[in-house]
């Protein structure tokens, strides 16, 4: 079970959170002009890296805020958490 440092509440147990998958996927504007393939890319295709992954988490049972986490998918080490709208920090494992 991970210990996730909510940027608002501080470290809390994983049971309080919900994972929202890969971060920094913006909803395309003008979706009507996208091809099926382009739309499917937004809808379905996600990174699954071995190593640092930028992902969204929601402190669902706490302050209800969404935020971003840079987490190593192998060691589960959390390198950084940052608020929605902030640029992803560069992380060197």
């Amino acid at each position: 079970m991970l210990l996730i440092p909510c940027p608002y509440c501080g470290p809390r147990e994983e049971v309080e959170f919900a994972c929202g998958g890969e971060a920094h996927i913006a909803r395309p504007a003008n979706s009507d002009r996208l091809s099926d393939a382009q739309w499917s890319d937004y809808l379905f295709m996600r990174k699954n890296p071995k190593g640092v992954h930028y992902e969204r988490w929601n402190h669902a049972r706490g302050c209800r805020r969404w935020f971003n986490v840079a987490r190593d998918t192998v060691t589960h080490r959390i390198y950084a958490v940052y608020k929605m709208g902030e640029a992803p920090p560069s992380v060197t494992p």
Partner: protein
Amino acid sequence: MTTQPYRLARGGRIDRAKRLRFSFNDRAYEGYRGDTLASALLANGVVLVGRGFKYHRPRGIMTAGSEEPNAIVQLGVGDRTEPNIRATQVELYDGLSAASINCWPSVEFDLGAVNGMMSRLFPAGFYYKTFMWPPSFWMKYEYFIRRMAGLGKAPDAPDPDRYDKTFAHCDVLVVGAGPAGLAAALAAGRAGARVILADEQAEPGGSLLASGETINGQPAAEWIAAALAELASMPDARVLARTTAFSYGDHNYVQMVERVADHLPPASSPGPRQRLWRVRAGQVVLAAGAIERPLVFADNDRPGIMLASAAATYVRRYAAAPGRRVLVFANNDGAYRDALALLDAGIGISAIVDPRPDPGAAIVAEIRRRGIEVLAGHVVAGTKGHGRVESAQVMKLDGDKVAGAARSIGCDAIAMSGGWNPTVHLFSQSGGKLRFDAARATFLPGAPVQAIRVAGAANGATSLQDCLREGHAAGAASAADAGAAGKAGDAPQAEPATPDEPAMPIWIVPSVKPVGEGGKHFIDHQNDVTAADLQLAVREGYSSVEHLKRYTTMGMGTDQGKTSNVNALALLAVTLGHEVGAVGTTTFRPPYTPVTVGAFAGHDQGDLLDPVRKTPLHGWHEIMGAPFENVGQWRRAWYYPKPGEDMHAAVGREAKAVRTGVGIVDASTLGKIDIQGPDAVELLNWVYTNAWNKLEIGRCRYGLMLGEDGMVMDDGVTTRLGENHYLMTTTTGNAARVLGWLENWLQCEWPHMRVYCTSVTEQWATVALNGPLARRLLAELTTDIELDPAKFPFLSFREGRVAAIPARIYRISFTGELSYEINVAPSHAVALWQALMAAGEKYAIVPYGTETMHVLRAEKGYIIVGQETDGTVTPHDLGMDWIVSKAKKDFIGKRSLARADTSRPDRKHLMGLLAENPSEVLPEGGQVVAEVKDRPPMAMIGHVTSSYFSPNAGRSIAMALIKNGRNRMGETVHVPAGERVIRATVTEPKFFDPEGKRLDG
């Protein structure tokens, strides 16, 4: 009753004043408080405690700790019986009863022992080779294998004991309370850290409990007592005995199980039997000690053959003699100290057999001085005995063979030692890699990846002084890393010891005949895996340690190979011609020792397994005898049977009453979200398929919510309460999900939107009146709301009082009848309900439950999200194009509706199904086929989503998702239902009042 013939006259940490009676295999014995079951059995001269798993050879007690592979017993009787318990960990209590497993009909006379004579039938991988063909025979084989294997019996009644679980937090968790662990806890505690010290044994002290050494000039036992007293005086140090740390997860999440009352007679204490500790530790010090390695020699499994350290522990700690003439077979100096302990207790030593050609340590000289023969450069090439070991065949070691004539040395026990394996299980679970240390011939912890330090024997330390020093340093450093600023004090001092001479690794002890031909070299005693099995597996091509493990079942017993894994790995390496350590290790998985499932459940079982959510009217429903339906965690009244009514009759009566008079239903579980802000309407336009700009204040509108994939996710009615103020309702099961969905978009995608969403699901209790008489009834209880349909039309909302209770009333309908959904404060719900029931008496008001609600909506063809939909259904599939705005440029899910797959004309469509026999109700979930064949497979074209007997239509009705359904109108399809096939006709999914004339009453 026997008289404990092997109990030593003096010594031990047992309380001789406290006699305890116990039974083993239905025979009565006596022991003392402080005994384990194993030590008490030894004291009584019981060495035959079980049978081998595969060959059913007699087995005795091999260790004195949690690593025990042999002495596995069935503990207790009746509801509390527990299989696969290690006798070495069971603390004796008065009245304890235990029995051997793996033997049938009895441990002395075991039919399965014939397997031993036919052992060539049980080679490595014998399950795979023998029982795989023909496949249909497996069931038969399994019956006999299970019978013969006899892995103990699970109780067949519910566990009567209570279990507890708790979270815990600390700066420094110390695992193991031996010398290193105690030193670490003292250092960390003195520095001011919050400390938890956990140890699996009955009392802290570890190896010191059986030690004659001194610390800080005090005998070990006194030093332990002083250390514990000091820890007890610290405000933030917790010492947990009988507590096994069994799992090491991410971010220093360590799970431990405390055996709170297992050492007491069953049901004799009021608290929980066991407690699960879920510890989040800032830093961990692993001081779990080390496990002695058995030697792999021919017939090394006879009762009486045990680890040298175990023999010394039984003598010193329990005053129980493992034998009267003990032969020691060891490749290291430590076992000589154990031999000395036995000698000091008056136990005879037949000889010490040491493969090292010239052991020269002082301790060896001392042993010789005491008149004990040391056979250097010799090995035990075999053993003999019936039931118990009676002699050892000792031969000279010549390279990797034995030479010369065997000398038979009489003995009734053999104390063996092949060196030590640090207990690195938790370190490995923490993600740390192990490295092979050739000098010590064992695996040691490498670089950690979490905040963990390993100290003492677990780190490869061998002297008491090193253990104390490492423990102290680890405790102090951990406390500092955790932010504790105090002083850790000085490390405890032991007497200086001269370093041991190197041990001589000997992974397989040669015998007269080749391995596998005459005598068995057991490696894994619990799963009966021999050196010959391993070598055979290697010859068959198994060179990966993980494959070898699975093929031979090595290390896969309840002991997880604590005594066998390293010997097996080394033998694999040697057989392959590799360096020992080059083949790696198998994965160390939790739990370290087996954990009772009850400990994981804690209090979350039985009636508390999952939260039961109750509406404010729950008590009223109970009094009326309503059965409840589970809807998520909610309990909803299902129907209200009158005396003599079954569900069918009750639902028939309720459903008729709603369409002819008035019915009342508790709809409090619907999700409700308060939405405020200038951009609220924009949010609604995004998350619903239809347009919201023109909804006036006081009006309500139905909405369909899609996922971004275009599939229906939720539905509900949203009301405009004020200029920038809306109330959204969701389905009962989706309330939290929809709120999360809105927040997800607002926070992550559209932070510019000025909207706040707040769940108000439980701020309001909802009571709905349905039926043509609803208006007349409501009119009697309200004075400040105009109920005339012209003034209060369908899909609108009013605020006022009902029975003098402040209420919000919504004219929305889930039945197709005239309907008022009355919302009041939950604390007033019962008062409102009773007022409506009382006033409704003259209208023959009928309370109805969820089943009738479902029937009524199905008669109208109204969908239920999650029943008609399953995440693969679009609005078009449901025939609900009318609610999908063409004018809106975009909304969540819009683009997906134009994808090639979602816009196919022949997708599954929601249709009605009418069985040819109107009294026959189709099975919900039933598969729909176009063409019936004699047997499967038949092409499935859809499934029944809802199916009821409709009292108002006077026949059975059903809805189904059917491929290309709208082009099959009037076709006959088939629904196989068990042995029968029901014929049905495809129709529109509307079965009552298709024009919707009844909404205004």
